[in-house]
């Protein structure tokens, strides 16, 4: 069981800044995120895009903002459970909560802060009949262990970086790699596109474009697929595996079943005080919450996180008074023993 004072669900900008604000109050945080890296949308969807409305930063790349937030909170030693999705929440007799992920990892904390953004990112699944039936029976939407495909014939579908990169990688592992995309153009790093081009010329990757996978067959496991090229008769291709890589889409997911008040795909909170949900001890901050006048902006998430931490302190230490401090005056004492403080002014007389 992983213990912390505040369990944060979602390691995007709001979740990361919560670690800092909680740390100032000497509260320890642990974060769960379905993605394998921290940063949420900023890291997953648009790391190279600029943001212009972070106070104090006329322009900052989303990926750099995440790096800065990680640097800002590192002395508070946040714990991370990455690549796992928070699945269930159970209230304990002592008032704390136990949150379990889809992989069974258990986390306990007195306060849960849902900073889940638009939800957890899940693969976009193409609309092919029976595709659910073949899931894990030849069809996969992500590659967890490429060795699974050693000496197998594999079809990849998609036109982005992950489809290109995996086509290159698997060309050394699988017995046959076919890449199918709806267009002749690929959207990926120039280097990846060129590598695929070379491998195609060497006959190591079969490229079928513009085309789409329209059918699946096999009695208990995928055996063959149907490929439709525009204005042509469909082709049947035998294959051991089909891996559609069409990017990720956020889904609110299991949080929707936690008994929280949900409105417009977001969690209703008390915006007059501390962004607490209808379940005392469970807060929702950042893009995942809603209240009258809500704006889904990173800067609003920072503010919400800060106020939430004050209430979290009162729940965790009911008999202690929290004292509000300015970092410029008090400095920042990390859990790792580091201290940041304003340099002392020098007192020296002038002769």
């Amino acid at each position, binding site marked *: 069981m992983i213990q912390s004072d505040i369990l944060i669900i979602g390691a995007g900008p709001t979740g990361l800044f919560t670690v800092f604000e909680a740390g100032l109050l000497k509260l320890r945080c642990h974060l769960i995120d379905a993605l394998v890296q921290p940063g949420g949308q900023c890291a997953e969807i648009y790391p190279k895009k600029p943001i212009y409305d972070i106070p104090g930063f006329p322009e900052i790349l989303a990926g750099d903002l995440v790096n800065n937030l990680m640097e800002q909170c590192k002395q508070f030693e946040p714990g991370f459970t990455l690549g796992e999705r928070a699945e269930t929440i159970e209230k304990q007799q002592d008032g704390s909560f136990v949150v379990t992920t889809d992989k069974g990892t258990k986390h306990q904390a007195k306060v849960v802060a849902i900073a889940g953004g638009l939800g957890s990112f899940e693969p976009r699944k*193409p609309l092919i009949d029976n595709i659910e039936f073949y899931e894990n029976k030849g069809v996969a939407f992500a590659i967890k262990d490429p060795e699974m495909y050693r000496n197998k014939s594999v079809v990849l579908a998609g036109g982005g970086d992950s489809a290109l990169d995996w086509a290159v990688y698997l060309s050394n592992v699988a017995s046959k790699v076919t890449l199918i995309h709806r267009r002749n153009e690929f*959207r990926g790093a120039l280097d990846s596109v060129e590598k695929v081009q070379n491998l195609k010329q060497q006959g190591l990757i079969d490229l079928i474009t513009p085309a789409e996978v329209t059918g699946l067959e096999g009695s208990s496991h995928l055996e063959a697929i149907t490929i439709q090229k525009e204005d042509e008769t469909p082709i049947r291709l035998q294959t051991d595996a089909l891996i559609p890589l069409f990017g990720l889409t956020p889904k609110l997911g299991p949080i929707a079943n936690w008994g929280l008040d949900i409105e417009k795909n977001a969690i209703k909170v008390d915006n007059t005080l501390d962004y607490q949900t209808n379940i005392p001890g469970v807060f929702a901050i950042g893009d995942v919450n809603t209240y009258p006048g809500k704006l889904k902006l990173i800067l609003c998430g920072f503010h919400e996180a800060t106020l939430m931490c004050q209430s979290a302190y009162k729940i965790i230490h009911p008999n202690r008074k929290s004292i509000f401090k300015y970092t410029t005056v008090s400095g920042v004492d990390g859990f790792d023993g580091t201290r940041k403080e304003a340099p002392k002014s020098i007192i020296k007389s002038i002769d």
Partner: protein
Amino acid sequence: MLDITLHITDRDGMTHEVQAPTDMVMNVMEVVKGFELAPEGTIGICGGMAMCASCQCYIESDHILPQQSDDELAMLSEAFFVKSNSRLGCQIQITEELDGLRLTLAPEE
């Protein structure tokens, strides 16, 4: 300030006539969101960066639209329910030339 009229058919098949301002640097996705013609969280998920297809729509009038960028073409090539008249609403700015535009929202993925 000049408003234009758009005819937007929502995902339930209901057509709405809405007035959209041309001086607010708005796009079609934002108009749909503003008038709540699709539930929050089901449209404009990426915020308007042509990085999701949640604002895909079918253009049903013969207005001349801004050209598709590479990003939009690439996104539509991976989207579902794509037709020859598919566009991403977030890539269509509201301008006077679009007065009377008719469109239908593509189904939710």
